[in-house]
Each structure stands twice: as C-alpha cells, then as structure tokens.
C-alpha cells in the first residue's frame, strides 16, 4: 500500500505540473528580416602612366588624358559612397625615388572625365554617389598627378601603388 500511495502521489504531481505548464506558458515568434544590396566592387583598370620622362623635366598627366589612372566602381543603385586614397609620395626604381605630387581627380557616373566632379585625391573623404537610371550603380574615377624627376634622376622604370578605397556611407 505504501508503494501504491507513493506512486499515486508522484503521478498526481506530474499531472499537476503538466497541467500547470500547459496553462501557464506560451510562446510565439516573429521574423527578423533584411535585404542586403549589392556589395561594392572597385577595379583599378588603367594605370596612371607618365610614359617616358626626362631628367629635370616635370611631367603631368591630367585626369582627361588617355593615360590617366582609372577606377571603376560598381554597387547599389544611387547609393552614396565615401572615396579615400592612399597615395605614394615617390615612385620607386631600386633605391631611387621619383617624387610624385599635385594629385588631381574626377569622379563621374558616366565613363568620362569631362562633366565629372573634380576633387583632390587624398586620405580625406570625398563623397560621391553611384549612378541611377539606365545603368545604375556605377561610378568612374580618373586620377592624374605630376612627377618631378631630378636632373640626375637615374634611368629606369619607376612605379608605386595608388590605392583607392570606396565604402557605402549610408546616404
């Protein structure tokens, strides 16, 4: 009988707990949702090329020149972006330096320097916006500069990276 009574009490407790749970707890859910737009892609698709330069004679490539540096940016339609540059102060050949300065730039939603927005490439943020309309989500950036070879500049091929970074700015 003792066993029977203990079993009955345990069953009663279980039944009571089960009932309590069923009546006193409830749950439901909602959904967290988002749509992510196109990530930015930046391609440096033309070098800033000064060609042959003469010792002691500065050379300039303008943003509208065929040898200007050129970047293509693609991303979300009409999205605002911040553009920054990491620029060299010298081109390098072995241990020799060729100063480069007087940077110029133009950004445009069509692939032409003419009609674009002029700016000075630097580490400071340049604000722009990707295109909208028939060819949405595009931006083109043109870069020029001046090199100043010394009169005794050693002959050689001088190079340095020009890095452009583009991020969405949420506008």
């Amino acid at each position, binding site marked *: *009988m*003792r066993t*029977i*009574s203990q079993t*009955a*009490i345990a*069953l*009663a407790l279980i*039944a*009571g707990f089960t*009932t*309590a*749970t069923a*009546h*006193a*707890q*409830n*749950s*439901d*859910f*909602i*959904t*967290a*949702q*988002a*749509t*992510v*737009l*196109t*990530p*930015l892609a930046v391609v440096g698709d033309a070098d800033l090329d000064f060609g042959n330069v003469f010792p002691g004679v500065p050379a300039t490539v303008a943003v509208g020149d065929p040898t200007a540096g050129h970047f293509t940016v693609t991303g*979300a339609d009409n*999205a605002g972006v911040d553009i920054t540059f990491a620029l060299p102060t010298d081109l390098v050949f072995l241990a020799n330096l060729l100063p480069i300065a007087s940077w110029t730039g133009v950004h445009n939603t069509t692939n032409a320097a003419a009609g674009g927005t002029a700016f000075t490439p630097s580490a400071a943020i340049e604000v722009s916006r990707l295109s909208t309309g028939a060819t949405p989500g595009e931006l083109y950036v043109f870069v020029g500069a001046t090199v100043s070879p010394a009169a005794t500049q050693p002959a050689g091929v001088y190079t340095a990276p020009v890095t452009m970074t583009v*991020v*969405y*700015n*949420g506008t």
Partner: protein
Amino acid sequence: MKTLAIVAAIALSLLPLIPLGAQGRGPPLRVRGRQSLAFNTLLPGLPELVPRTDVARSGQLEIRGRKNTQVMLQFLLPTEMTGPGGAILPLAFGSDDAGFASSRQRGSQVGFDPHAPFTAGLPQNGRGFVFIGGTAQPLPNQRAGSYSATVTLIVADPGT
C-alpha cells in the same frame, strides 16, 4: 496510509480537470507575434540599428493573460540571419533592445535586456506588448539578397 492513497488518487483524477486559471480568473496566457523586426534594405559594411521604439520596424508581440498579474518574458535570440546560399549576416541585441508596454504606444515602453528573463505586469485588460529592436551588421562583402531569422518569445506565469 490507505486513506492517503485514496486522497492522492482522488487528487490525481481531479487535477487535469482543474485549469490553473482557477488560481485566478481570466484567459490562459498567450503570446502572438504581431510584427517582424524589419531592417529593410542594408548596404554591405554599414550596420543598421532598429530601436525598439521604432513603430514601423521594431519586432512586436502581444501577450494576453489574466488581468493584474505578472508574467515572465524570455527571448530566444538568433545571432545571425541566414540568406542566399546559406550566407549569414550577424545580428546583435543590446541590453536595452527589448521593451514592454501595456499599450502599443512606444512612449510607454519599459526597456529591458532581451538576453535575460524579465518580469512584467499585465494591466487591467490583461494585455501587454513586447517590442524588440536590434542591430544588423552586414560585412563589407556581404552577399546581396534576402536574409531572415526567428526571434522567439516565451511567456510564462512566474508562479509555475
């Protein structure tokens, strides 16, 4: 001992017939999701915060239970949303990203930490509203597309 066994058996037979509502009058405790937590469109690399007080975008759930009683709230929170091809988008909830109110008016919310249980009081009409905000953190190279996750709210009578 025989008497005890008989009493227990009687109790056993009666318990399922006595709803806990007998401890207080009113409908059983229920919660229903009313509105998704909507981050809408996101740009890769730009975190987006939806405040719990954002009427249009915060997640909202409605509780119904017995009037003038307390309920225990506990969220089951995701750490990421899932998108195209199984891509994941990190999701974070701050210590003040949940709110409770006795009406849908955002100004009446009492904030609480959605990571911890929270005890709230249901008012005279037995209805309460729970709001949840959060921050989506898309990576700079986040794959484009639709992402989603489930936010679950468990509501319990703290007396059980």
